[in-house]
């Protein structure tokens, strides 16, 4: 029988990789009798889904930042130089 510590590790690992057969069976048996780890898996899955949307697809909310004016000017100068304009 595997421990909750080990089950938690397998649960997070399963988000990134297909677990070997034996580990899958061990985890399934553990979750059959452990409601805490079942709940942990649901909550971790929710975090995984939200992270994929937040980081992979969209801008993080309330994170609108402005490029500092001096940096904008620096980049404009670099682009002008690259284009061969004085």
């Amino acid at each position: 029988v595997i421990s909750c510590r080990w089950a938690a590790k397998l649960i997070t690992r399963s988000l990134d990789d297909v677990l070997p057969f034996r580990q899958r069976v061990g985890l399934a048996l553990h979750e059959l009798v452990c409601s805490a780890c079942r709940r942990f898996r649901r909550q971790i899955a929710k975090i995984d889904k939200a992270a994929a949307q937040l980081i992979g697809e969209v801008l993080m909310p309330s994170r609108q930042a402005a490029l500092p004016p001096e940096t904008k000017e620096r980049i404009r100068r670099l682009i002008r130089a690259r284009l061969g304009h004085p």
Partner: protein
Amino acid sequence: MTWVDTYGDYLYSFALARVRNPHAAEDLVQDTLLAALSGQKRFSGRATERSWLTSILKHKVVDWLREKVRNRLKEEPLPDKSVDTMFSRFGKWKSPPEKWCKDDPGREITRNEFQEALTGCLDKLPERLRHAFVLRYVDEQSVHEICQAAGVSAKNLWVMLHRARLRLWRCLTVSWFGEDAEVPQGGEV
């Protein structure tokens, strides 16, 4: 209007949200626009200009994070007390996962609230864990490919990802589960 004026703030926000370092984010935007300038002929016009620039920036963000993760994971990660103490000597949860009472996946506003909470918790992660976690989600490859590209062992990256997730989970349990005592009906998660 130049690219800098039209897309500068957007690109900067995109980079800053992921690398959390203003100087690095500024440099990444600069590199992106200069790279776009030399690659302008390759812009097919099928995508919008903004999404084309964003995809160049995304690659640069991935490269930046890979470099950070590579430097961090040259050695085996040290033990993480904050995660180890979540379990007893016998491997049982010290405080088992509680129901997230505010949760109701059907409501749009709740999803935004959850993402806000997640953003706050991401900021509380130690930098090394945040870099590994963000790289995992910003890079569209598998962990094996990420590790190959970054030149680190998958085992080490998994340790970091496991720690990052446990810390995020605990942080969200506090910020998400806490304060609000009114439990909405149904939708147990």
